[in-house]
């Protein structure tokens, strides 16, 4: 997706310095791609086509190559998402512990209604994700970088209060 306004460069000043430091960890520029994409997403909230082109230029890769990598990994957003991006694990170990009920509760209480859509007020997007590696603490939920364990449908309204 292209940005609606002109893309603002991310890798200048401190960010460029930080990326350069990261690049020293690897023998190829290509290997700094995942870290660079994380930096881009942290700065802009999502990864646009222009963002991919910028990263490509900085690392001597092609935009098409970068796009191939971005679309492989599910944690990179390719379009803007709600301010609070809610990911609920529904794979089998959590599924048998009520995960789908947790999803329904989030959809209801955020006003999103549907998976993947952003709420009208722009605050929330809710998606289902695969195993988050906290199966003994069903159901784990991520809200942006917050990893919350043991969420139940009943706890959802209270949890959402933290995210205004």
């Amino acid at each position: 997706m292209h940005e609606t306004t002109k893309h603002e460069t991310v890798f200048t000043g401190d960010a460029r310095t930080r990326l350069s430091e990261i690049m020293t960890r690897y023998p190829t520029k290509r290997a700094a791609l995942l870290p660079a994409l994380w930096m881009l997403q942290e700065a802009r909230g999502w990864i646009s086509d222009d963002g991919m082109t910028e990263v490509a230029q900085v690392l001597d890769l092609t935009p098409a190559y970068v796009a191939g990598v971005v679309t492989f990994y599910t944690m990179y957003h390719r379009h803007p998402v709600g301010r609070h991006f809610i990911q609920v694990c529904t794979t089998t170990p959590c599924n048998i512990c009520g995960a789908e009920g947790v999803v329904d509760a989030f959809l209801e209480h955020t006003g999103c209604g549907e998976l993947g859509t952003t709420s009208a007020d722009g605050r929330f997007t809710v998606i289902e994700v695969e195993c988050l590696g906290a199966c003994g603490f069903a159901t784990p939920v991520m809200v942006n970088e917050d990893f919350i364990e043991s969420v139940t449908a009943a706890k959802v309204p209270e949890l959402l209060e933290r995210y205004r």
Partner: protein
Amino acid sequence: MGYPHKSHPRETVVLSEYFGDAEAKTYKGWVKRGGYKALEQAVGLGPAGVIEEVKISGLRGRGGAGFPAGLKWSFMPKEKTKQHYLCCNADESEPGTFKDREIMRWTPHALIEGCLIAQHAIQADITYIYIRGEFTEPLEVMERAVAEAYEHGVVGPNASGPLKEMNIYIHKGAGAYICGEETALMNSIEGRRGNPRTKPPFPAAAGVFGMPTTINNVETLAAVPHIITKGGEWYKGLCRSNPKSTGTKLLSVCGHVAKPGNYEVEMGFPLKDLLYDLCGGIRDGNALKAVIPGGSSVPILNEEEAEGCLLDYEGCVEAGTMLGSGGVIVFDETADMVFQIMRLAKFYAHESCAQCTQCREGTAWTVRILQKILAGNGEMKDLDLLLDLAENMTGKTICVLSDSCAAPVVSGIKKFRSEFEAYITGVRAPVMAAV
């Protein structure tokens, strides 16, 4: 100890001793608890000495493959002509498994120490600890711990001897289960799509960046310092059943047990005791229906098989399954096996890297057939089709994701056929709308 629970007396607490202990996360706290002595000893032993000790211990890979760690390290070139690498596989994404997360967020320095000892043994200059992107807390804790390690001269410019030239870096993943496959992990570090590679070449010959590489799981590496300080013989002695399976295993128990969590037991521990004794039995007093003991990629056990299964590599094979990663998923009588097998197939379909035809197309087709059955439109021949598909998906691809999708389908139809037939004959009402 299965944080947040207290250690059960029948646990053999080695790796999990400090789970829940906030001070153990810090360098000072770790040293106070005896940390980094093993590293010092290891440097004294030298690479060959370390490898020998680990070989004696019988330590096997704890990520799922169970390959002898000492043997794997000995595949690395003895004479170093190129850059060597260690990759620590902290991508933990196998459904049912949540042990590496605990090791990293409670005892980060244990992992660092294990990595450095391994690095020394295989003459690797650099370790990349590949942590899945979703593991916010482990990432934070490990980054801080690595910084402390550099600061306090454990590794890097402030260190001395061989550790001075070594480096440890954290590499953050971005959401792909398949990156837990060792060759896909290496591709991901290289900045590529996480596609598994065909073998040969094997990592010890040409791994990350084409250089000799060893990949080890977090739990495997965390055991190494203990093997150095207490000796390989000690570790070998932690064995209840088959002498080829030694040491302790962190079993991640989840699903329908009263007390889900990580439990550390000696290899060969009976699954029955784990469930009914350590985990407090099935929740709500329900009856046990099925157990997947090794993460979702291994065959499902029914109640009888589960209660007779010993938890080590050979014991699980004998019971018709595999120990795998030790992610114990417990299903009680309320579980809809057909739906959950569909949900697992959906997991594999979502995670398929798309290289191999059987996996890319087969996982998706498997999901559709199962959804058709759950929507009340299934036919008996669909079960034959699922089994035929599963056969086509087994043993024919670059990696075993395809086989992993087939395993629950095959074992599920074999052992819970009546549940499938209930949907097909209409005895059980559909639970899904037709897709």
